[in-house]
């Protein structure tokens, strides 16, 4: 009885070095961990970050025509637009807000936009101190 017990423990202990060998192999290799706050991620091209309007580099204008397709498709109702008519008789968004706390980063709004006015940027550190900060205006 005691012998059997001892044998079991012996067998168990003896099966450990096998696993240890695997660990030891990695011990001698380079670490795989990234030191996060010091090193930053490079996000892939398709990464879906925060929804934002694309502004033309030269003219500083966006392409939104205030059609509200994005507002309608949004499954979580996180976008809101107030429209207005400009002097050139064209619609434009007077305000354009995103409730970041409500957004689920699905990208449907970007996909549906007829003028390709929206994009999802590469931001990923999105925690804020107050709830109000989560409401973002897409317009400058």
């Amino acid at each position, binding site marked *: 009885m005691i012998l059997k017990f001892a044998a079991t423990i012996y067998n168990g202990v003896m099966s450990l070095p096998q*696993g240890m060998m695997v660990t030891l192999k990695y011990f001698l290799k380079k670490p795989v961990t990234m030191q996060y706050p010091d090193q930053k991620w490079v996000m892939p091209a398709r*990464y879906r970050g925060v929804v934002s309007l694309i502004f033309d580099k030269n003219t500083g204008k966006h392409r939104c025509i205030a059609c509200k397709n994005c507002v309608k498709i949004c499954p979580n109702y996180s976008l809101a637009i107030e429209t207005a008519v400009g002097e050139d008789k064209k619609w434009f968004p007077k305000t354009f807000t995103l409730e970041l706390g409500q957004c689920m980063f699905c*990208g449907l709004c970007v996909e549906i936009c007829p003028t390709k006015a929206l994009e999802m940027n590469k931001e990923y550190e999105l925690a804020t101190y107050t709830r109000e900060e989560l409401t973002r205006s897409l317009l400058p």
Partner: protein
Amino acid sequence: MKEDSAQDFITEEYLLNMGPQHPATHGVLRLVLRMDGENILDLVPDLGYLHRGFEKIAENRTYKQFLPFTDRLDYLAGMFNNHVYCLAVEKLLKITVPPRAEYIRVLVSELNRIASHLVWFGPFAMDLGAITPFLYAFREREMIIDLLESVSGQRLTYSYFRIGGVAQDLPDDFIVQAKAFCEYFKPKVDEYDTLLSKNIIFIKRTKNIGVLPKELAIDYGCSGPVLRGSGVAYDVRKNEPYSVYKDLSFDIPVGTIGDSLDRYNVRIEEMRQSVRIIEQVLEKLPGGEIMAAVPKVVKPAPGEAYARIEAPRGDFGFFIVSDGSDKPYRLKIRAPSFSNLSVLPELVKGLKISDVLAVFGSIDIVLGDVDR
């Protein structure tokens, strides 16, 4: 002081709450254990902590809008959730998906299956006291997640499938990277074997623990590795092939007696099989369209449809009733984890408290899937 203390000593049963905040419940689940000393008399899973009411939400969203919500059901296997939802809606709409899209779907799904099994493998080992496999499993999983992120843009909540196809084609270097991953991953599974599967301590803790007989598994509606571990070779991919699975060759691993070790072995072998599928898909991937012609507003004719797939945790189904409007009239989700969890009380009766984790881990549930 007194000699008769042994007779006077009154023992009684007691209730032990495991969870809702317990590291080994992998989510929020409360297991109420009725105990006699260290022996388990009964167990009642108390669930619902993660209930978000997705079936009701679906009734208030258009068909296209509901897709991102499905990511959040079984959050370790987002691609499968997308897939089964799209299949159900496509059935309602009677759309045929282009072959390239179907192959891409299978490709990303099988990658996702490996990632999901790795998240089971690591924590399962950790629950039993082996910490190293966890780190290795997550190292490999990270590579898959990076691959899937480069395709879909997100790490877990992919929303990559669309009704009628997939959102975007694969990125340029994806095929090369996926091949490289397969080559990298194959020896890793053998390494897990050395680390854990052959470890005598691990075998002692799982062999003959939580035996689930065939009949009981079928009675409870178990599916996936839990059912196959009990020796029933049932896999939706083989028994009712959807997508392009009938063109691919792969084996269905089964266990013999249905103990925790059998369920473990089935999943380990499934990872190998998934690699096999991925390699075939990468070989066969046809060119062409990735989206079928889908109306701008999805409004299926009145009727109903049921689609099912083999998710990492089992038979996963969506039942949709359409009343002809742009929103589902009723949507019912058949979650594999729910049925698999319901069999847990049968398995742990008479075991010791420390065995609960071995059995519970081998069942592999995701609470997002159980509670919905």
